[in-house]
């Protein structure tokens, strides 16, 4: 079976891995790089649990073939926090109880980061549409939307 050698940057680190053609980037991240933050909820691009930011764009990693990541810069949920501090989104999700089971959380954090990178002062409606590609079955989205709005405030006006 032929395996492709892929080199890319993940969460700021240069990494490389071998992957089968046709394997998804999601599986490569999880199985080859041990980055289990991105989850597979569907494998068909419908749930957003596998969300990553690749070259500045929000993507479903389950829909990307692993070899396509060659040369790309990728951010996963594991790359949000610094060594001693959580990202404001992570902190607001914790304080706002925006997670129940937590399986969707990495995907929402990434989708929310992609939104706030583009639009630091979104309205509630903009947040709701930006997160419409991410499914959460536990929370009814209320506390997620509030937490993203709160994080936006904190990022705009650092303490």
């Amino acid at each position, binding site marked *: 079976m032929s395996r492709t050698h892929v080199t890319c940057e993940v969460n700021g680190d240069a990494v490389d891995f071998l992957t*089968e053609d046709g394997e998804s980037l999601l599986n490569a991240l*999880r*199985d080859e790089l041990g*980055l*289990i*933050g*991105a*989850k*597979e*909820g*569907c*494998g*068909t691009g*419908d*749930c957003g*649990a596998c969300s990553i930011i690749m070259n500045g764009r929000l993507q479903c990693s389950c829909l990307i073939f692993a070899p396509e990541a060659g040369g790309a810069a990728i951010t*996963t*949920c*594991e790359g*949000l*926090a610094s060594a001693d501090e*959580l990202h404001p989104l*992570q902190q607001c*999700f*914790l*304080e*706002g*109880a925006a*997670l*129940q*089971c*937590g*399986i*969707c*959380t*990495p995907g929402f*954090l990434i989708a929310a980061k992609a939104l706030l990178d583009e639009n630091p002062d979104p309205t*509630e*409606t903009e*947040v*709701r*549409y930006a*997160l*419409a*590609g*991410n*499914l*959460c*079955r*536990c*929370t*009814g*989205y*209320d*506390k*997620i*939307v*509030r*937490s993203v709005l*709160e994080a936006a405030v904190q990022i705009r006006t650092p303490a």
Partner: protein
Amino acid sequence: MSTTEAPASTGTNGNGASGYRWVGTRPVRHDGLDKVAGKARYAADLNLPGMLHGHILRSPHPHARIVSIDTTKAAAMPGVKAVITGADFPEAPPKGATRNLMCTVIARDKVLYSGHAVAAVAASTRREAKAAAEAIEVTYEQLPHVLNIADAMADGAPVIHDNLLTRGVDPRPTEPSNVAARTVYERGDVEQGFGEADIVIEREFSTQAVHQGYIEPHACVVDCDQEGKAVIWASSQGHFMVRSSTATVLGWDTSRIKVIPAEIGGGFGGKTTIYIEPVAALLSTKAGRPVKIVMSREDVFRATGPAPGSIIKMKVGARNDGTITTAKAWLAYENGAFQGIAAMLGCMCVVSAYTLDHLYVEGFDVVLNRPVNVAYRAPSAPAAAFAMDSVVDEIAARLGMDPIDLRLHNCPSQGDPTPYGPKWPMIGLRDCLEAIRDSDHYQTALPDGQGRGVATGFWFNIGEASSATVNLNENGTATVITGSPDIGGSRASMALMAAEELGLDVHLIQPVVGDTEVVGFTDVTEGSRATFATGMAVVEACRDLKTQLRKRAAKTWDCDVEEVEWVDGSAVHGPGEQEPLTLAAITGNAKRTGGPLGATASLNARGAGPAFSVQVADVSVDSETGRVTVERYTTAQDAGTAIHPSYVEGQMQGGVVQGIGWALNEEYIYSDDGNLENPGFLDYRIPVASDLPMIETVIVEVPNPSHPYGVRGVGEVGIVPPLPVLANAVADATGVRISDLPLSPPRVLDALTAAES
């Protein structure tokens, strides 16, 4: 470390009625950091050295006899280490719950639904396993199938189980049918009740099967060794259930199996049973290597837990003053391929929010060629409430009464008989009705062009068995070990109750979910029981510890234990001759006063308090497209006491949104040939953020006298009212009452068009 206030959630109270220090606060949950950092391990996140991947072959037919299975080709494929079929499993008994479980895990002589597991392969890679599974040659003899209640109950319908004789019919039928059971609840004389009524409304309702829709597909890793021991890492609502069910299916002694709970990515009832663990265990045994099975989303839809569809006929009579005199209900619920209790539960719930002198409720549990039902939040109650509360709403409209006043007028209270017999204990229905009536939402005039609906919901809640161990560490911290998986913040609730009891800061308490070998037996998390029942065990263990702590202080002070009180986390000498001893001072000295301090409590929790919810929604209906938009939504629910109000609100909001999905969009769509046509989130559309407004919550607290902190379960009842709430709101907005769910755009448009012509 401090507690943190959640962002404002309108209308929320839930701030611990009675001056607790910890109960009723909103600390950051203990497992939160791992979950926002992407470190939490769900079952699919575990990989073991030498691990193989399992793949399950599923039936393409809804009903067929398995004539033969040839695995030769598959076994010879690259990477394949083990192939199994139903023949590798112990024989199933001819009928009963054990057969149903065993035959759900893997089909024996017949497949009973499209998606039914038939055989399985373990191979080095996922792809090799899948390719080999697809190379297994199964010869089927197709049989006629039935997919809906009407067909299954019809005379001459194809019979799914030739030994299924309807229970609850006297004399018992001698011929098999697809009606598994009949249930009747009766009181008074309904004909007299209709005679006393000024108006009588009779309607027929239908609801469609829906899926729990947890975002995490079922997954497990099983490692069996040469001595016959198995270690299972699985995501479930109860690892002791995984252990006993796996043992049952494999005919193994439970002591061979250890189950380590992974984090669980949602369950809602759907993970109160097992599908894949025994398959992985058998593959692992055969291959001598660990085996991982992760279901695909398609398999989750095709082969796991739908909540049943239903047909309900309601006839209700009322007097002009709003008194409901009688109700007569006929209910039929899908059970899936094996018999269940869906209709029985529906019968128990259907008129529970009303006081009735005369009632007759008759229900039928019906088997058909779909996957077997699994619980979904307050199972059977949503469809039942849809029927009853739609009719009640129509009565209110006809009488020109406020729908909440009408419900208050007929509201049961403590001591009134339930429809299913026993008397109501203390319940909070009236308080919930009043909370919604007094809410900002209900008091605000309905915007032009919108419709408003209200409805009620009831669910029993369940106690069952739980265990907890609390160990005090030498530095004055505590470890709380329970057997209930943390689905939605229960670790935090356990820690809060322990903090309150011991007088310790909640962040000095480490809550742990213990595996089947480190903590005592704990029933599956169902019936909203974790915070109630497991919490009771935590409290009991903490109270035992407080006695021990007082004894240690008495020993230190050389006084009588009766002279020592436990106040705010310290031993206090009653006569006041000694300086108080903090918990840390006592645990730090524990070896000198008699050894380490720990306590365990195991109990059958009694007195689970029934839960009620009342909800209101404003909707607008697009007359061009038929699309229903929820503009505003408020839910009131009796939580007893809210231990962690943020997660109580979260349960309420999550339940409401699942109910909104059920009401507006979600449905299983089967083709005539018995295959599920929408086994994915693209075509089975669950609500997304942009479909919804904020879900306003009012936590009503009518403490449950049977729980040390007054807890009632909060996990389930929230899903019940949205079905009638939205149907009532759509009727209010359009003047057209739709009695078939979901209220999807095509159905609403059809109804609007039909009403016009």
